[in-house]
C-alpha cells in the first residue's frame, strides 16, 4: 500500500510523520509534570510508527502510471478494517459499563477502570471510532464512484484517515487517564480538538477538490449528505470547543462559555452531532449502498431534496429540547420543541424514500442479509426519529428526561440505524474493494443479522421499561400527598432491566466480532486467490473515449 505512493508522496509522508513526532516531543517536554506529557509520548510513538512504516517501503520503485486511470481505494480498505476494530473495542467497553450498573464491583480498584472513565471510551469508541472511520472509508468510495473521478492525490486521504485515528487514540487514552472536558460527545481536550480541526479542514478540502474534478455534471444526493456532515460538524466542533487552556503545558482547559449559554451551546452541538454525524453522514451511505445493492434507482428525487434541506435547516433548532423545564429561557425550549416535532417530516421522507426504493426488490431483502441490514436500518431510522420528535414534546420530556428512556432512544438510533446501515454497507463494499464475488461466508452475515437485531430489540425494550418505570416512580405520590418512592427504590427496580440490557449489548458485540472475522477471512480469501492482483480493475468510465485525463489522473 505504501509502495503505491509516489516517491514525492513518500517524502511528504515522512515529513508529516516527523512533524507529528516533533509535536509529540514538544508536548512531552512542555507537559512533563502533567497528563499532557503522557499524551506527548503517545503522539511521539504514533509519529515514529508512521515514519518507520513509510521508511520500510521508501526504496520500492515508483508506482506505475496506469494507477491514475483507476480509483484510489487503499485508504478505504484500511478505513474499513479500522472501523471494525473500533467497533469491537467500543462495544466491548459498552458491555462492560452496562455490566457495571448491575454488578458495580466488576472492575479493578484503579481510576482508569471506573465507570465514569470507561463510559466515554464506549461512546467515543463507537461514535467516532466505528462510525467515523466507516464514514471516512465509505465517503472516499462513494465520492469517487459518483463523481467518476479519482481522488486528487494519494497522500491527503491517508493524512485524513490516519490523523483522524490519532485523534481517536488521544481521545480514548485521555478518558482512561482522566483527561476530559466533560462536554458530552465532545470530551477530548483542547489539543485533541485543535488536531481534529486540522484533519477535518483537510478532509473538507479533499472532498471539494475531488468534486471539482468530477466528470458527472450533477453532484449525487449521497455527496450532499457527506458534505453537510463534514461542513456542519466542523462548525459545531469549533464553536462548542472554544476554551482557554490552563497553560500550554497543561491538558486542562476551561470552556469559554458557562452556565446557561454553555448548556445551550453544548446541546446545540450534542443534538447536531446526532444530526450531522450520526444521521447525515449515514444517510449518505444509505443513498449509495442501498440502491446499489437492491439494484433499483432511488424512489424519488424530489423527496431527497425535501428531506435533505429539511434536515439541514431544522435539526439546528432542535438542541434545546434537551433542556426542557431547566433554567434555559422558555422561548428557546419552545422553539426547540416545535422544530423537533416538524423534523419528523424530512426524517420520514428519507426513511420512506429508502423503503420505497426497495419496492420490486423485496425478494432480495428476504434472501440477502446484507440488504436486509439496510432495510432494517431504514425502519429503525423511521422509528427512532418518530420517538425523538415525540420525546421532544415538553410534557413527554418531563417524564422521559434524565431516565433510561433517553438511553434506549439513543441506542435504537445507534444500534438499529447507524450500526445496521454501516454493517450493511460494509458487507456490500468489502467484496467490491477486495475484488471477490462475495463475502467469505454469507451464512455468517445471516448470523450477524439476527444477533444484531435481537440484541437491539432486547436492549431497547429493557431501556423503555426501565426508563418509564423510573420516570413514573420519581413522580408518584401516595395518599398522604408525599412522594411514594425514595430514589434508591427506583434504582433497585432497574436491576432486572440493567441485566437484560447487558445481555442485549453482548449479543450486539458478538455480532460485531462475527463481522470482523468474516471481513478478515474475506481479505485472506482474496489474498490467497491473488485476485486482487490479477483481477479486473475498477476504473472511471469516461464519458467519451476521447476525454483527456486530468493532471494526476
Amino acid at each position, binding site marked *: 500500500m505504501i509502495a503505491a505512493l509516489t516517491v514525492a508522496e513518500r517524502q511528504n509522508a515522512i515529513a508529516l510523520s516527523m512533524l507529528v513526532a516533533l509535536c509529540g516531543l514538544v508536548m512531552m517536554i512542555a507537559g512533563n509534570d502533567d497528563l499532557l506529557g503522557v499524551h506527548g509520548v503517545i503522539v511521539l510513538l504514533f509519529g515514529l510508527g508512521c515514519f518507520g512504516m513509510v521508511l520500510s517501503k521508501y526504496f520500492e520503485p515508483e508506482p506505475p502510471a496506469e494507477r491514475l486511470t483507476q480509483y484510489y481505494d487503499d485508504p478505504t480498505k484500511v478505513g474499513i478494517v479500522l472501523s471494525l476494530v473500533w467497533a469491537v473495542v467500543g462495544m466491548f467497553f459498552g458491555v462492560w459499563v452496562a455490566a457495571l450498573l448491575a454488578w458495580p464491583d466488576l472492575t479493578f480498584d484503579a481510576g482508569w477502570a*471506573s465507570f465514569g472513565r470507561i463510559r466515554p471510551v464506549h461512546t467515543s469508541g463507537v461514535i467516532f471510532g466505528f462510525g467515523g472511520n466507516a464514514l471516512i472509508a465509505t465517503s472516499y468510495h462513494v465520492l469517487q464512484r459518483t463523481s467518476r473521478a479519482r481522488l486528487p492525490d494519494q497522500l491527503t486521504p491517508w493524512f485524513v484517515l490516519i490523523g483522524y485515528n490519532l485523534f481517536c487514540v488521544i481521545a480514548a487514552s485521555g478518558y482512561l487517564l482522566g483527561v476530559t*472536558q*466533560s462536554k458530552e460527545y465532545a470530551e477530548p481536550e483542547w489539543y485533541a480538538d485543535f488536531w481534529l480541526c486540522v484533519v477535518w479542514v483537510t478532509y473538507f478540502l479533499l472532498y471539494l477538490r475531488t468534486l471539482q474534478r468530477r466528470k458527472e455534471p*450533477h453532484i449525487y444526493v449521497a455527496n450532499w449528505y457527506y458534505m453537510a456532515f463534514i461542513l456542519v460538524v466542523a462548525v459545531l466542533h469549533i464553536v462548542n470547543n472554544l476554551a482557554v487552556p490552563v497553560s500550554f503545558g497543561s491538558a486542562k482547559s*476551561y470552556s469559554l462559555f458557562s*452556565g446557561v*449559554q454553555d448548556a445551550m451551546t453544548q446541546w446545540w452541538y450534542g443534538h447536531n452531532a446526532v444530526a450531522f454525524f450520526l444521521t447525515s453522514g449515514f444517510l449518505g451511505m444509505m443513498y449509495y449502498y442501498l440502491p446499489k445493492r437492491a439494484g433499483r434507482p432511488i424512489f424519488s428525487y424530489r423527496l431527497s*431534496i425535501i428531506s435533505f434541506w429539511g434536515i439541514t435547516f431544522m435539526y439546528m433548532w432542535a438542541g434545546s429540547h434537551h433542556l426542557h423545564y431547566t433554567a434555559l429561557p422558555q422561548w428557546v425550549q419552545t422553539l426547540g420543541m416545535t422544530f423537533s416535532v416538524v423534523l419528523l417530516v424530512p426524517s420520514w421522507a428519507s426513511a420512506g424514500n429508502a423503503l420505497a426504493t426497495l419496492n420490486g426488490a423485496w425478494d432480495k431483502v428476504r434472501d440477502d442479509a446484507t440488504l436486509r441490514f439496510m432495510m432494517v436500518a431504514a425502519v429503525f431510522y423511521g422509528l427512532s426519529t418518530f420517538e425523538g420528535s415525540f420525546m421532544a414534546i415538553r410534557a413527554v420530556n418531563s417524564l422521559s428526561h*434524565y431516565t433510561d428512556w433517553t438511553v434506549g432512544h439513543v441506542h435504537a438510533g445507534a444500534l438499529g440505524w447507524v450500526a445496521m446501515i454501516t454493517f450493511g454497507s460494509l458487507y456490500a463494499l468489502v467484496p467490491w474493494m477486495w475484488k471477490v464475488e462475495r463475502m467469505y461466508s454469507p451464512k455468517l452475515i445471516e448470523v450477524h443479522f439476527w444477533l444484531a437485531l435481537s440484541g437491539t430489540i432486547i436492549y431497547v425494550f429493557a431501556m423503555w421499561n426501565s426508563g418509564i418505570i423510573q420516570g413514573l416512580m420519581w413522580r408518584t405520590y401516595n395518599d398522604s400527598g408525599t412522594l411514594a418512592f425514595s430514589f434508591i427504590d427506583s434504582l433497585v427496580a432497574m436491576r432486572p432491566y440493567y441485566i437484560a440490557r447487558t445481555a442485549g449489548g453482548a449479543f450486539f458485540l458478538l455480532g460485531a466480532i462475527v463481522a470482523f472475522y468474516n471481513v478478515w477471512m474475506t481479505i485472506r480469501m482474496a489474498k490467497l486467490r491473488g485476485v486482487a492482483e490479477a483481477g479486473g480493475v475498477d476504473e472511471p468510465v469516461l464519458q467519451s473515449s476521447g476525454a483527456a485525463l486530468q493532471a494526476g489522473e
Partner: protein
Amino acid sequence: MREFFHRKLERNAIGFVLAIILVSGIGGFVEIAPLFTIHETVEEAPDMRVYTPLELAGRNIYIREGCYACHSQMIRTLRDEVERYGPYSLAVESKYDHPMLWGSKRTGPDIARLGGKYSDAWHVAHLINPRDVVPQSVMPKYGWLMRNELKTSDLGKHLAAQRAVGVPYTDAMIANASADAYGQASPDSPYAGGLGERYGEATNVRAFDGEPGRLTEMDAVVAYLQILGRLTDAAHRQTAAAGK
C-alpha cells in the same frame, strides 16, 4: 421552478457548500446569540461567590471521574423534583461553571443541592465504598481519592484561566491559590486565615477527609460536594418570596 433551481445548484460544488452553511447556520444563531444579550436570561444574585481553589480542584476531579454521567445538577421546575431535591435551579447558580455540569441522566440522584445534606465523614465513607452506607447503591468506589495527594502547584494558573473566561477571581486569590487550597483543609494551619477574607466568612474550612495534615483529592471532592447549591441563596429567596 424549484426543481430547475435545484438542478442548477447541484452542479455547483461551491454554491452547494455555501447554501449548506447558510441554511444550517440560522437555527443556532437565532437560539444562541440572544442568550448572551437578553438581560433576563441570567438572574441577579449579588451574594454569588466563586469557587475556592480547593473546591475548583474538587470540581475538576468530579469532571475527571465522569461523575456528571450519572448525576445531574439541574432541578427542573416540576413539583416532584422540587419536593425531592429542593428549590428548582436558577441560571445564575451555574454562572461561574465553565463548563456547566447540568447533566443529562440520573442513574444516581440530582446533586444540585447536595451541599450540607450529609456530613463530611458520610461523604468520605460513601466515596470509598458506596455500599458501606447505601447497600443497594451501584455507584463505583473511589478509593484512590483518599490515596492520591492533591496537586496544588498549578492552581494559580487554573484561577487565572478561569479569570480569562470571565470568572471574577482577584489578583490576591490567584497569588494565594495553592496556599488557600491547603489552608481550607487544614483549619489549624496558618494558611487557613486568608480564606474568609477572600471568599467570605461562610466558607467551609475543615479537614474534609478527616486527616488534617494531608491534602488529598478526597479533601477537594468533599469540599466541592459540600458547596453544591450553596454559592448563592437566590433560589431559596425566590421560594420564600413566592411563599409570601
